[in-house]
C-alpha cells in the first residue's frame, strides 16, 4: 500500500515505522530515510521556506512510489514531505519502505529519494539571519544520481 502526505506539521518517524510494521508478520525489513534542514552554508541560516505545487506534488510522489512498487517486491511505501517554513534541524522528508527482504527495501528507498528530488514540484528558499535570501539551486549531482536508475534497467 502507498501512503503519501504533504503537510506543514512535523512527523514522528517512529510512528511512521510502526505503521510500516502494522501488525504484519510478512515484513522482513524496513528501510527508511529522513532528510533534515541543514545549516552548513557560508551564511547562518534563519529558516527555509518550502514552496510546492498543490495537487501535482501529491500526484508526483504517488507516481514515484508506484514506479518503485513496479520495480521491486515491496509491501508498503510511506512518503511524508513537509512544506512551509522550517528551521535548521527540522525534519523535511520521510521515506519508508517495507519488504520481505532488505535488498528491495534499501534500493526502493534510495530510488524514491533520488526520483523525488528530481521530479516532485518543491522549491526551497533559504532565509539567512543577515536578512538576505536565496533560492536553492537544483544540483547536477541529483540528476546524475537519478539517471543511474535508468541505466540499471
Amino acid at each position, binding site marked *: 500500500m502507498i501512503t503519501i502526505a504533504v503537510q506543514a506539521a512535523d512527523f514522528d518517524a517512529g510512528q511512521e515505522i510502526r505503521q510500516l510494521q502494522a501488525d504484519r508478520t510478512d515484513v522482513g525489513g524496513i528501510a527508511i530515510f529522513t532528510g533534515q534542514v541543514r545549516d552548513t552554508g557560508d551564511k547562518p541560516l534563519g529558516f527555509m521556506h518550502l514552496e510546492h*505545487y498543490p495537487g501535482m506534488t501529491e500526484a508526483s510522489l504517488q507516481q514515484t512510489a508506484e514506479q518503485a512498487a513496479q520495480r521491486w517486491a515491496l509491501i508498503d511505501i510511506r512518503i511524508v514531505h513537509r512544506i512551509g517554513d522550517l528551521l535548521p534541524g527540522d525534519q523535511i522528508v520521510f521515506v519508508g519502505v517495507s519488504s520481505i527482504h532488505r535488498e528491495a527495501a534499501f534500493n526502493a528507498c534510495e530510488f524514491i529519494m533520488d526520483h523525488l*528530488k528530481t521530479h516532485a514540484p518543491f522549491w526551497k528558499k533559504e532565509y539567512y539571519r543577515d536578512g538576505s535570501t536565496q533560492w536553492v539551486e537544483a544540483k547536477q549531482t541529483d540528476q546524475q544520481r537519478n539517471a543511474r536508475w535508468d541505466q540499471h534497467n
Partner: protein
Amino acid sequence: MKILFFGNLREQLGTGEIELPVAPGTNNIAELLETLKQRGPEWQQTLSAGSLLCAVNQTMATRDTLLEDSDEVALFPPVTGG
C-alpha cells in the same frame, strides 16, 4: 487557459497565476512561451531559461506538449525538494 508560476519564476514575474485565452496558433508549450515573452523584458528574460520546466494538467510536460484552452499549465525552475 490558467498558467501558474512557481519558485523564483513566480518572484521574477511578480505573479503566481494568470489567465490567458489561447491565441489561435498557440498549439504547444514552446509557442505559449513565445507568446508570454512578448509581455515585457522580465518575461522575455525569465522564460528564456533553458532549464525551465513545465507541467500540463499537473503532469510533467515538454516544449512540444500540445495545449487546449481548458488546460492548466505550470512553469517553474528545476525542483529542489527532498
